[in-house]
């Protein structure tokens, strides 16, 4: 070992994202497209490099092909380093057998050797399904100042939503005295964002102990954090007041995309001092045709728009043909919306084709739910997909409407 790192980040990217249904059929949730140019994992990765953390282990498990290819050698995030950089850490086979990652804590446990290589003082635990802009360096500073064994980043949420999160209570010095995972009657509005900084030695101790505990679900929220609290380890809440969104559901994914629109967006990704990086597709600039109407939307390279696009987010190489209407929708990379087709209040995954005159979803004002088409779905001309349907390419092929 010729150098050490102060802080190593471990990014949990193995989740299946089952609540995104068709969108995660062939891809891990962190690799799902977001915000025109990005994939979800671009946000934690960009935050890392912008916070001067250059050693990131990405724990993958579910459908890793697209994610692995996307991360590659980490070059788009300047994480191609001679020492450190990004390393993809899939489950592996060892002398005493092979294990899938059983829980978040177990995933880190299985990679303690990776962390050890860099001999860090601190370990930052991140998850691959949140959209936010955060300077981890500030959180680390806070962690050092309070002398905590563990710092948990928290966000104030409305009390009626609090029972969806891990809720913690802290005193006036932000010292945590209570933690409850998804409490039915929340006592506080401080929700854990799933971002932790641990002193390495403390983390190692509790992970090893947890691994040897019968019946543990090997989860940070359910096991590690409560145990540490119970033992009286100094744990602090780091209050974050910026934009943060868990995009674990169809609805929240749609909303988070819409949060990027407008003159004063909820979440401003156009920040020269905090650039989000992504793997580039090497496509021509977007072309907006003679009869096109484009309003309140974000669009990126390779798109060719000859129809109408309103209140929508379009990823690279999307084609919207003449007479087609895309409204209140998210359309991912490489998808074509053919002539006179309509896509309303929908999310359409990559490389799909919406046939001529087809209608997907319904006006946002009338529809109750977002309509979803999965990766590679080919919709024949004139087809109508009812609002709220979530269809994979297979479903469409089988005529299951």
């Amino acid at each position: 070992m010729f150098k050490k790192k102060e802080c190593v980040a471990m990014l949990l990217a193995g989740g299946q994202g089952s609540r995104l249904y068709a969108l995660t059929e062939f891809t891990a949730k962190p690799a799902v497209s977001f915000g025109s140019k990005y994939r979800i994992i671009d946000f934690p990765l960009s935050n890392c490099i912008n916070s001067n953390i250059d050693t990131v282990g990405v724990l993958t498990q579910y459908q890793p092909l697209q994610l692995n290819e996307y991360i590659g050698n980490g070059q788009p995030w300047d994480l191609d380093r001679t020492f450190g950089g990004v390393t993809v850490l899939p489950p592996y086979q060892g002398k005493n057998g092979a294990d899938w990652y059983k829980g978040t804590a177990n995933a880190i446990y299985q990679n303690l050797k990776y962390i050890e290589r860099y001999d860090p003082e601190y370990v930052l635990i991140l998850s691959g399904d949140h959209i936010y802009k955060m300077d981890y360096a500030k959180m680390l500073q806070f962690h050092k100042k309070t002398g905590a064994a563990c710092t948990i980043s928290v966000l104030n949420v409305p009390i009626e939503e609090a029972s969806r999160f891990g809720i913690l209570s802290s005193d006036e010095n932000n010292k945590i005295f209570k933690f409850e995972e998804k409490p039915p009657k929340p006592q506080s509005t401080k929700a854990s964002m799933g971002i932790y900084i641990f002193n390495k030695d403390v983390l190692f101790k509790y992970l090893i102990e947890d691994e040897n505990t019968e019946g543990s679900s090997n989860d940070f929220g359910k096991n590690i954090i409560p145990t540490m609290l119970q033992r009286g380890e100094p744990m602090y809440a780091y209050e974050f007041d910026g934009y943060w969104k868990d995009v674990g559901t169809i609805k929240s994914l749609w909303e988070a995309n819409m949060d990027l629109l407008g003159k004063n967006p909820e979440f401003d990704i156009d920040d020269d001092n905090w650039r989000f990086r992504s793997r580039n597709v090497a496509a021509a600039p977007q072309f907006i045709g003679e009869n096109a109407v484009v309003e309140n939307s974000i669009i990126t390279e390779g798109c060719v728009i000859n129809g109408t696009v309103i209140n929508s987010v379009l990823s690279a190489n999307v084609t919207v043909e003449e007479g087609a209407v895309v409204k209140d929708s998210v359309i991912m990379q490489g998808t074509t919306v053919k002539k006179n087709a309509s896509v309303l209040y929908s999310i359409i995954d990559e490389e799909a084709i919406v046939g001529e005159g087809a209608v997907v979803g319904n006006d946002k004002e009338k529809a109750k739910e977002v309509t979803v088409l999965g990766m590679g779905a080919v919709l024949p001309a004139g087809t109508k997909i009812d609002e709220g349907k979530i269809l994979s390419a297979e479903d469409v092929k089988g005529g299951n409407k």
Partner: protein
Amino acid sequence: MATAAGLIFSNIHDRNVPELTGKRSMASVPFGGRYRLVDFALSNMVNANITKVGIITHYNYQSLVDHLGTGKDWDLARSTGGLKILPPQITTFDNAGTKTVFSSRLDALMNAYNFVSKSTEEYIVLSDCDIVCNIDLKDVIKFHVDNGADITLVTKNVYMTKENAKNCTIVESDDNGRVTNLVDNPASMEGMLDVCLNIFVLRREYLNRIIIDTLSRGYKSFTKDIIAANKDNMKFMKYEYAGYFATINTLDGYFKSSMDLLSAEVRDCVFGVKSRPVYTKVKNSAPAKYMEGASVKNSLIADGCVIEGVVENSILFRGVHVGKGTVIKNCIIMQDSTVGKDVNLNCVIADKNVVIKDGRNLSGHETHPFSLAKGPVI
């Protein structure tokens, strides 16, 4: 496939468009919303598996170096080969014969002597930067080898007026495609002519000899001393390129070629070839944002643009802001320029970082676009 290295001339026709090359090389002239001219030459090479490319620079190459970086965006950041910038060799003591930096193609090649002599590739592809095209160089190299040519010149058969031909090199050949003559800047040629695209393929050893001969015999002109003088004893062949090409040799020509990109056929030909994408520096700008009330028609828009006004028949580079009530027609607005509110622009070429304040009216004419240099506040 035969191995080849590439050599790109970054400055060769700079003085043709002084408006754009005042503070940069021809290679770094912005083009097509997110590119610099060098991207086309470089991408053509990279897409033909050429992984070693020397870029001969002359002057004003800061912007070029900044654009190219390590070459990683073209996949040319390599421990073996990769991108090599070849700046002029001027020393305090050793410039007796050449008091100035080079002025011709042959002079420029002197610069690349070490690159050429120390390479191990069998062939070298030479390319200028003032040509926009997407060409399959693999095929050109194959043609060169199959025909046993000494030099292959890429040409395009196209109708030329006297005025256009004046800025080009015209290739004359016999029925077999063997080059019989090269005419630089002809005064009175017109009609269907074979224009030289200034892309050449030759054996590395032959290029090495040309460089040594040039040094020892004081040759001045590639056209006269190399091509014309040897046309009978060497085999010079033309390779006819069929796709779209544009030569950037006047400001009007730059304007016109840029506007060509608004045609779907041209875009398909330049950007639409799946196996041959055009690479450029990645900037990580946010996606382009269209606001409520924006109206954009027949325009090429790059990422990072924020549009609140009307944009028609125009090209906006990365990071251009267009304010409310503003109407931009037939314009080329380069990187990070800001156009305020209620501005009217017609046939304007605005270079990088131009700020146009609220309420201004600026207009040129299609044949004489009004050009704004880099950086002013209007």
